């Protein structure tokens, strides 16, 4: 189910809230689990069995790790087995086809016949809930968390529908106390509504129109240079408002249920270096990668050379986490190299001496280049797109007709609004926590109403991060 659909907003959510707030407190986590399974299974019912298997297995592994008398060796064996099981499942569903296609390409290189490949459907959100579950096991092993009080608490944590399919990635230790006891107040609920409305508006009013522009350009055979820049700019806005909007809605729904999720975005396009980008973009992922991958690899404790390698490896794997394609790996490598380069310069960008607007502009430009790698269908398409951006591609031919799709009042107006919003400092997460006034409430309800009306009239409503 997607948050910005009538089935979620007008059927699932009211029914869920009605039952949730009328249940005795001890039954609420059970209801969260059940409803989350319906929410998740709505896309493909058999996916639920996979998530249920992961949940049961990891709950048992958690008890094995924390059982009284377990030696460190036994704990290590248990956590290794659990991590391997989870990564094997993730690896099969997410990377099997990529591996098989690469294997076929290698066979062809050496003159052998390629073989047919089993088509494996990627269960949506598997990357997110696998990470949720792994943080539980690893934190237990490290002694950073205590085992879940009950299976109901743990299953509610893994399946929690607000952050289930596209994050933010919530660690068990962050929610452990809230799973046991959380406060439900009108203020908290209202602030949840506030940020939900803002996220909803970001997605429907901004991300979707930008997505149409981006899709038109990225699908064009040979876009003219100006259109290529327009397309990647539109994609930069689309992916930000899409993902940030989804995170805001997730945070909002969490607050309605009494949970506090951390901020996942903090004005990333105002960053002055790529290092800063990763402190502001998908904060929950970068912190998970830092704590569960970068630090175990040695972090910066094993000398500068090893630090650069670690940064590159972490970003490479981060790219692969986003998708099983070579262009995601290239995207990760691009970021890894920049982070290593900036680390070498003392966490400063190459242009740190320039005025602030120039620093922000150049960082945004680097982000645009990285988005080409991220959005293109494959590495060849990314190369062609870069060529088009610099006027080095083939003659545009019929792609000149793109002008009829791009340079129209509505997309131009939306992109201008996006440009203003990404450079202003106030973030929805903070704004929604400030005292609510009638004027603000009216604005939020106006945005919600407008978003709902447009939701019913839009045919284009994808969620980018579902595929990750």
């Amino acid at each position, binding site marked *: 189910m997607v948050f910005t659909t009538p089935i979620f907003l007008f059927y699932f959510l009211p029914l869920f809230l009605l039952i949730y707030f009328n249940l005795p407190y001890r039954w609420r986590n059970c209801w969260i689990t059940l409803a989350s399974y319906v929410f998740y299974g*709505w896309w493909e019912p058999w996916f639920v069995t996979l998530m249920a298997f992961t949940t049961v297995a990891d709950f048992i592994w958690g008890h094995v790790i924390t059982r009284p008398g377990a030696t460190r060796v036994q704990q290590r064996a248990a956590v290794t087995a659990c991590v391997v099981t989870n990564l094997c499942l993730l690896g099969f569903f997410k990377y099997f086809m990529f591996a098989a296609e690469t294997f*076929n390409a290698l066979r062809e290189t050496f003159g052998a016949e390629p073989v047919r490949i089993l088509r494996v459907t990627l269960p949506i959100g598997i990357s997110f809930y696998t990470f949720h579950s792994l943080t539980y096991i690893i934190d237990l092993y490290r002694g950073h968390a205590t085992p879940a009080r009950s299976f109901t608490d743990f299953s509610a944590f893994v399946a929690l529908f607000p952050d289930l399919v596209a994050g933010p990635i919530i660690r068990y230790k962050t929610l452990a106390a809230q799973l046991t006891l959380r406060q439900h107040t009108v*203020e908290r609920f209202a602030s949840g509504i506030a940020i939900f409305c803002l996220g909803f508006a970001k997605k429907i009013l901004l991300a979707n129109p930008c997505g149409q522009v981006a899709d038109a350009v990225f699908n064009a055979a040979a876009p003219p240079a100006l259109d290529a820049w327009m397309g990647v700019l539109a994609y930069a806005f689309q992916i930000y408002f899409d993902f940030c909007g989804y995170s805001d809605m997730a945070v909002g729904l969490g607050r309605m249920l009494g949970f506090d999720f951390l901020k996942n975005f903090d004005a990333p396009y105002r960053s002055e270096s790529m290092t800063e980008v990763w402190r502001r973009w998908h904060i929950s992922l970068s912190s998970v990668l830092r704590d569960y991958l970068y630090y175990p690899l040695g972090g910066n404790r094993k000398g500068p050379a090893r630090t650069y390698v670690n940064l590159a490896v972490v970003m490479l794997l981060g790219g692969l986490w986003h998708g099983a394609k070579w262009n995601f790996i290239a995207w990760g490598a691009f970021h890894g190299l920049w982070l290593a380069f900036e680390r070498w310069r003392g966490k400063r960008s190459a242009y740190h001496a320039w005025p602030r607007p120039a620093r922000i502009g150049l960082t945004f430009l680097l982000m645009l280049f990285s988005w080409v790698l991220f959005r293109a269908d494959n590495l060849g398409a990314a190369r062609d797109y870069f060529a088009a951006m610099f006027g080095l591609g083939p003659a545009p031919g019929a792609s000149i007709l793109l002008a009829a799709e791009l340079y129209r009042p509505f997309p131009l107006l939306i992109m201008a609004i996006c440009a203003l919003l990404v450079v202003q400092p106030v973030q929805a997460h903070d704004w929604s926590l400030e005292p609510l006034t009638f004027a603000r409430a009216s604005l939020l309800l106006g945005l919600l109403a407008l978003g709902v009306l447009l939701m019913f009239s839009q045919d284009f409503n994808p969620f980018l991060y579902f595929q990750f």
Partner: protein
Amino acid sequence: MRANSPTTPLLHRRPQLALTVVFLGLIAAVPVSQTALELVRGQRVQFTDVFRDSPTSGNLRRHEAALKEKSWVQQTFRPVIQRLMFRAFGDAGAKAVTGRDGWLFYRPDVRFLIEGSRPDTGDAASRWVQPAPPAAQWESVARAIRRFDEQLEQRGIQLLIVPVPGKPSVHAEQLTARAGAGRTGFASPTRELIAELERHGVAAVDLLPVFERARSSVPSGKLYLAHDTHWTPHGARLAAEAVAARLRNLGWAPQATTAFTLRKAAVDRRGDILEMMQIPGLRDTFAPQRIECDQVLDPALGPLVPGPSERPGTYRHPIHQSPLLVLGDSFSRIYQLPEPRSLGTAVVGTESPDPETGERRLSKRLLPGSAGFVSHLAHALQAPVDAIVSDGGASTDVRRKLSTNPEILEGKRVVIWQFVERDIALGRAGWADVPLPVELGK
């Protein structure tokens, strides 16, 4: 959390309460009012459908789509929003793109040109991914056409392919000023398809050069309708004459057997793109386009229109057995055969008083008939032409109809297969193999 604490006096919590009440009221009001409306109308409560079928992915998607589609909110506000978007921003919605001077274009026509040759990803529902590298969509189409050609060849029938350029191919300058006046002839998968077919000995007619040459000689310079995906009667006639000329060149043209004549007719037509935009009332705000047609008349039968016993979309000359069969889509149907939906109803003539009631009303009938591609091909050859047409179904549906009605191939020497170029983008999935039935007595 910096928000007010739970101990904040109620007075200061009013905005929070108001926001909460209105939000909950809004999300509850939609399903409650929808249910009430359905009960009042005596209809089945829509959302309970989800419990009636097994919860498969397909059923759930279908229920979700139906829930949105039948919602009173959607039915009430979607047209308002779309009309507003069109009026304020010229946004024509998912199906259409607004061009210059009020012209409208069908978005898949535009996308087909912009996207060019794309790899054919095949059938995404298949359990196995075949190792063969994905061919371009036009290559898959060429393969499907060649297989059909081989089937016809076994029956001694020739095949002539006629891809029809979409409106943006011919009138790019009406889409965007960037195209410049008269700039056409873009490299497109259509050119590649035609070249590939010719390489393999399948004859094809490239209409684009024909239209380019003709544009300078047409008074208005327009070969397509402003608000419609289709060509003008003049465009249809030009295409028919080009096909006739190619048949003569190939030595496939039949002997002239009939002295068809022409008669002037005029129809007022509102474009199908206005209909596809699904904005109620929009059609009425655009004046219908007056279209002058040349109706082709048979000396014995008058207009070449199907008799009442003919299957929908099929035309056979009732007297002479035709050696030619046209398989085509709405480009073959327009001005020729009755349209499948009401949008084809056109106003013809002037207001006249009703003889019984005395009320003045416009006389209405379907498009004039016998003034389209098929009739003009018959006129150009002076020989009858049979046809099977299916709107949007030239890639596969017409061959299915032919397969279930194979007697129509009796006595045929040439099949002319017309389809609009955007159908090439359907690729393998849209160009299915349809084996012709085995000939009786063979």
